[in-house]
């Protein structure tokens, strides 16, 4: 007997891809900023 599939959110694939890109860009910015002179210089 097969179980009913769990409901999904309907979130499109591009949303997941964009989320990953945002995280990568933000982490890169913070690392470069901190490596380049601490919290000063915004």
């Amino acid at each position, binding site marked *: 007997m097969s179980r009913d599939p769990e409901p999904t959110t309907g*979130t499109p694939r591009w949303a997941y891809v*964009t989320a990953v890109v945002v995280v990568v860009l933000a982490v890169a910015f913070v690392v470069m900023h901190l490596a380049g002179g601490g*919290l000063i210089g915004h």
Partner: protein
Amino acid sequence: MTLRVQGRVFRVVILLTLALVAFFGVIVAQPALIGGLAGDPSGGHIGQHFREPHHRIHDLAFGLLLGTTAIGAFVQLRAPGKNVAGQLMAAIPIVALVLAAVAGDRRVLAIPWVAVGAPTIVATLLHPDLFRSISRIRPAGSMVALVAIAALPLLAFALSNIGLQRTGANDHAALGHYGYMAAYALTVVAVGIVSSLRLEGWTLVARIAGALAVFLGVASLVFPDVEGSVGAVWAAATTAWGVGYIAIAEIVRRDDRGVL
């Protein structure tokens, strides 16, 4: 991704967003703490935030931008499905700041809003009910009209500040403050638009849109000579618009519930 898994991931990202807001709030309130972590130069620099009189309106605007994001994220802790508009509201200041950085210059970029902004955008994209809710928008004509009235002067204000950010050689431009003011004006318009679409949880968003306008108006009246003030006439108009928008939204809300 299943609804259950995405709901859990969403909740973790929201908690991360709020933790980062709290972290930066503590740093601003107690700059001496960061001195021990990042070195005295950083601690001394951060200690100037929200404490220099000639930056009052700019600091207030930046605080309110991140405050808007924080409120939008906070309401997701309880019933995200009933606060879809709140999640969009949380993302708006971040998108506005990105636009200001792109249209202005890189001096608008700052670690606090980038660090808070990334999980905010991720949470918005992963909101369990966002994409299903978009088909259920119900624009309120009176609210749309009020936002349209405010949009022209606010967009002009935003463009003016973008110009100052690009060409400015003073400390306000160096700190990205004109970019923050441009983002603030864009945020008032965009939060107004989102609330006028009446997605789930729109009443809080409408009140925030009005309150943001009132804050700008009152700050301009209280500190008329501080950079960022819109002047007495526009301050009165901005305040009146904010109060009027909240009042109209309340009428629409009561009409929704059949009170009137």
